[in-house]
């Protein structure tokens, strides 16, 4: 099965056995490819012990810590083929990851993002209200992870309006304009968790106002740590947004710049879902063995898309719990899980968390 075949099937249609077989074969190929084209990656996988014949499933692929992209420039294609370098959104003083993306990888990442998201919001494009400032995407050659996420999702939309001014104030004129055109039909609303909380919800609360965004699907992402530190749970967030904007369709997601496109979106049951393009494996911190369902571990992510850089099997600095596989009541196949937090020594680095660090 080629990547193109994966793009032609429903992104949540593979059962565990079939998915393991396909991922094992694709990830084995990718490991060989990156070993042949990235010397540093070859050294690491030599040290970890690489035996292609021992690969029976995705969990047998050697994984490297996500932090390696901070300390090393890892790529597997000539530099001349790189058309964009994505950087993680590290706060001041933190080193940022550098991810080198070529045309093929970039296109596939974009496709995967759209395939996954449209399974949640439908194939039909809808107008989109973006809870951010247009300044974030102003400089086309230098996108932050935040700008890249906005532009990636922009393809789902017929028309996009920005709800915040360049000074990050709620732009009521722009919002009213958008709502008068599209407020009575289904539309999309996208923002990073903290932006939505601080610049939409709190701003409305301080003004003593409410908005009718009841027809919106609210897509959020980019880190919960700041809200958790303010003692705001996912449920409290949804309740607050519902009371001030009437929103009842919430789609949060988990993802990272090192595997752009392969996002894990949250279904109405509150579960994050792995698509056919990627998978999660929870590992025990003591020996990196695989956790059982229900057992908290460090999240490893694998993806079949990274071709220009060796990022197809990465140990993240997040913790999570696998909740089940192939049997979520929402009907999607594949693993579903929840993220429980970040490793203690890990840095603050979600898109909205790094922004929120300034507050």
């Amino acid at each position, binding site marked *: 099965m080629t990547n193109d075949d994966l793009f032609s099937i429903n992104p949540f249609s593979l059962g565990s056995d079939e998915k393991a077989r396909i991922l094992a074969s694709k990830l084995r190929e990718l490991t060989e490819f990156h070993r042949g084209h990235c010397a540093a990656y070859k050294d690491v996988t030599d040290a970890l012990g690489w035996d292609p014949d021992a690969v029976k499933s995705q969990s047998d692929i050697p994984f490297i810590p996500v932090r390696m992209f901070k300390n090393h420039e890892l790529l597997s294609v000539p530099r001349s083929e790189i*058309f964009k370098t994505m950087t993680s959104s590290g706060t001041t003083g933190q080193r940022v990851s550098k991810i080198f993306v070529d*045309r093929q990888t970039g296109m596939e990442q974009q496709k995967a993002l*759209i395939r996954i998201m449209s399974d949640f919001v439908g194939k039909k*494009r809808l107008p989109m209200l973006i809870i951010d400032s247009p300044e974030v995407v102003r400089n086309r050659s230098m996108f932050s992870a935040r700008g890249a996420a906005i532009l990636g999702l922009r393809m789902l939309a017929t028309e996009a309006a920005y709800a915040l001014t360049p000074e990050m104030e709620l732009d009521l004129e722009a919002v009213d304009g958008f709502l008068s055109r599209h407020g009575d039909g289904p539309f999309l609303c996208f923002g990073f968790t903290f932006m939505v909380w601080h610049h939409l919800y709190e701003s409305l609360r301080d003004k003593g106002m409410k908005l009718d965004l009841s027809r919106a699907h609210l897509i959020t992402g980019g880190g919960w740590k700041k809200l958790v530190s303010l003692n705001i749970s996912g449920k409290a967030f949804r309740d607050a947004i519902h009371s001030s904007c009437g929103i009842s369709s919430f789609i949060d997601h988990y993802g990272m710049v090192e595997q752009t496109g392969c996002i894990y979106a949250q279904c109405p049951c509150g579960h994050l879902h792995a698509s056919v393009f990627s998978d999660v494996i929870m590992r025990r911190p003591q020996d990196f063995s695989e956790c059982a369902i229900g057992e908290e571990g460090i999240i490893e992510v694998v993806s079949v898309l990274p071709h220009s850089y060796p990022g197809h099997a990465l140990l993240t600095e997040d913790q999570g719990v696998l909740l089940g596989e192939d049997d979520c009541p929402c009907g999607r196949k594949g693993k579903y899980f929840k993220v429980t937090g970040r490793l203690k020594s890990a840095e603050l680095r979600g898109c909205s968390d790094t922004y929120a660090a300034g507050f």
Partner: protein
Amino acid sequence: MPEAFRHESRKKSMTNKEKYINCFTQALEVPAEGVEKLEYQGVESWDSVGHMSLVAALEDAFGIQMDTDDIVDLSSFEKGIAIMKKYGVEI
């Protein structure tokens, strides 16, 4: 999109091919010469921002609304011709 272009692209006298080429030259700010060889990310202006301008131009010129799958599949000038066909637009 500039008003002048909107007007121009709707002139009855233009062929679909001319309209199609116009969408690329205007949205991506490239000369008509070599337009047939254009690929997504092949020129600096055809990035994700340029891509959405191109989609808006095509939708406006031909009065269509593209599906998300077709938007991500629109990876070259050539590929776009096949996609337009799905919407009943022969280039």
